[in-house]
């Protein structure tokens, strides 16, 4: 049957391009320390189970969850590691939710931790493992390796995002200024968030447009950084959450939906998504999540959104696909300031993935920040009262979308 789950607390480590002052377990410990600081009633002995995860092969060490067992306080307790590529953080949060929702005897409070120390591992090895299967198949069918790598531009997520950006820009008839505006909003918001990476309080649209193209239509100044950082979330039952914190945040809906593989497809057979910005998986995950949470009018009922947007065109795309704005109207809303901190529907007030991207942790930082906005404990807190918020995730070439809807009222429909 399942039971109502609440988020009691969430915490972050400091993010930077190279956290060379700490090792990987120490980085994770920082996030847990910050998370438990927000929930003074919880001792490490009160936590019944742990969920842990990061982007596979990006950390450069074998079985990192066992290395950091002592640093998490997980010795002799149930521990689970989940990795789903770019959406790892979202999946770790959903796993934490499921662990509590299952209602197993003796498992009420679960700590979910997602982390990434990209400066330590070899990112190119990680990326190679993402695309190598499809590339070797195309290779066998007659396309030489040099041409494939040129076509895919080394296979990184930016290749996929650039294709999405071109069709999105074609569909909405927007200019590069509209993309730059999103970046400026994100990086200025990041300057007010203590844990964010790229803090640029005085960034202007002209400065963004002054940087060279990485890949048309995306410029260097629009692309997310590579960060080191960790995030922790504390999930517990409805009853216990009321004792632990002042404003428990109830998880009312979760979804994780995969869609057609972008660009390459399986066995080199191409993609059925003729328009890469169509994103049927996001639409479906929104449907599932909102029906669980009893949200009928997302635009009206959702007060705050954290969407996974390493590239500005994705932020515009997601807010539309997740039902927050009508199709092709998001750029206007950004121009009108609807999505600003003091706007009608604030989006990514933490600066989002565009300002901080510790890959494995990024997709968990979205629901974590969205939960803190409801609790009123966020670093860049919006002035209005947030009742309902969402946090989404998107994973690389597979187009896997994770979504979590949270509220200050327990409304999960069973």
């Amino acid at each position, binding site marked *: 049957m399942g039971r109502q789950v609440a988020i009691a607390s969430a915490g972050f480590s400091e993010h930077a391009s190279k956290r*060379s*002052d*700490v090792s990987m377990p*120490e980085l994770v*410990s920082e996030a*847990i*320390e910050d998370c*438990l*600081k927000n*929930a*003074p009633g*919880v*001792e*490490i*002995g009160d936590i019944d189970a742990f969920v842990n995860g990061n982007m596979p092969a990006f950390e450069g060490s074998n079985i990192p969850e066992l290395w950091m067992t002592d640093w998490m*306080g997980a010795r002799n307790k149930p521990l689970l590691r989940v990795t789903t590529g770019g959406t790892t953080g979202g999946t770790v949060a959903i796993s934490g939710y499921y662990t509590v929702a299952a209602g197993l005897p003796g498992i009420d409070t679960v700590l979910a931790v997602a982390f990434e120390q990209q400066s330590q591992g070899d990112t190119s*090895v990680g990326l*190679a493992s993402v695309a*190598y*299967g499809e590339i*070797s*198949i195309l290779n*066998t*069918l*007659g*396309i*030489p390796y040099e*041409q*494939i790598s*040129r*076509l*895919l*531009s080394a296979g990184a997520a930016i*290749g996929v995002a*650039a*294709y*999405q*950006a*071109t*069709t999105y820009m*074609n569909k909405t008839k927007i200019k590069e200024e509209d993309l730059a505006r999103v970046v400026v909003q994100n990086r200025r918001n990041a300057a007010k968030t203590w844990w964010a990476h790229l803090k640029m309080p005085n960034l202007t649209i002209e400065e963004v447009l002054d940087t*060279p*193209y*990485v*890949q*048309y*239509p995306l410029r260097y100044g629009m692309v997310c950084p590579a960060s080191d950082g960790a995030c922790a979330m504390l999930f517990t039952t409805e009853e216990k959450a009321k004792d632990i914190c002042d404003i428990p945040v109830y998880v009312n809906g979760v979804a994780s939906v995969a869609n*057609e593989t972008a*660009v390459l*497809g*399986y*066995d*080199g*057979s*191409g*993609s*059925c998504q*003729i*328009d*890469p910005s169509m994103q049927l998986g996001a639409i479906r995950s929104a449907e599932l999540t909102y029906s669980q949470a009893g949200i009928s009018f997302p635009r009206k009922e959702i007060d705050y959104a954290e969407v996974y947007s390493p590239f500005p065109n994705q932020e515009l795309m997601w807010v539309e696909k997740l039902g927050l704005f009508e199709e092709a109207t998001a750029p206007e809303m950004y121009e009108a300031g609807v999505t600003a901190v003091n706007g009608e529907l604030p989006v990514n007030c933490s600066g989002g993935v565009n300002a901080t991207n510790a890959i494995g942790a990024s997709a968990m930082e979205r629901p974590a920040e969205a939960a803190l906005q409801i609790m009123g404990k966020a670093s860049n807190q919006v002035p209005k009262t947030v009742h309902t918020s969402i946090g989404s995730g998107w994973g690389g070439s597979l187009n896997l979308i994770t979504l979590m809807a949270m509220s200050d009222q327990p409304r999960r429909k069973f």
Partner: protein
Amino acid sequence: MSKMTQRKSLDYIKKDYVRTRTLTGSWYLASYKFKFNITHMKPFLEKLKEKKLIGNQCSSCNRVFYPPRQVCGKCLVKPDKWVDIRNTARVSTFAISYLKDPETGEVQERPMVLVHHDGADTTSIAELNPEIDVKDVYVGMPIIAHWRDETVGGLMDIEYYDKFIDDSDDIRYKK
């Protein structure tokens, strides 16, 4: 008060050590063996030798896959019908990459396109004629396959795609 917060904060570590010690290491990781079936590709590759394009169609949802696919993800049905596909296509989407020539150091602009063949329901990666100016490329641009003189029965038999003027009215670009 939690034990985690009672415990001395991590600052004591930072006081003692300004930096962590960095150990560099490397090991050979890039060796893979993937098993995949190519029997469903055979008719497709043989037709390429004759400079003809075919795709396979799902009998349940009628979607046409080019290059052929082993299973339709929508219906969990094996596409078993072969259908002809035109050698004309549309640019479904594109991006421009900026690659440095290793010898001259000159930055080259190269458009990378996903092509949507007329008669197919999928897009595939391809290259445009290097003589096409990158500024002229747009979404929905009509293009035509340019074959190599000697075909071997591989995807590389299509050397690149050329621009052409589309005066046919029977096929409209599907949105």
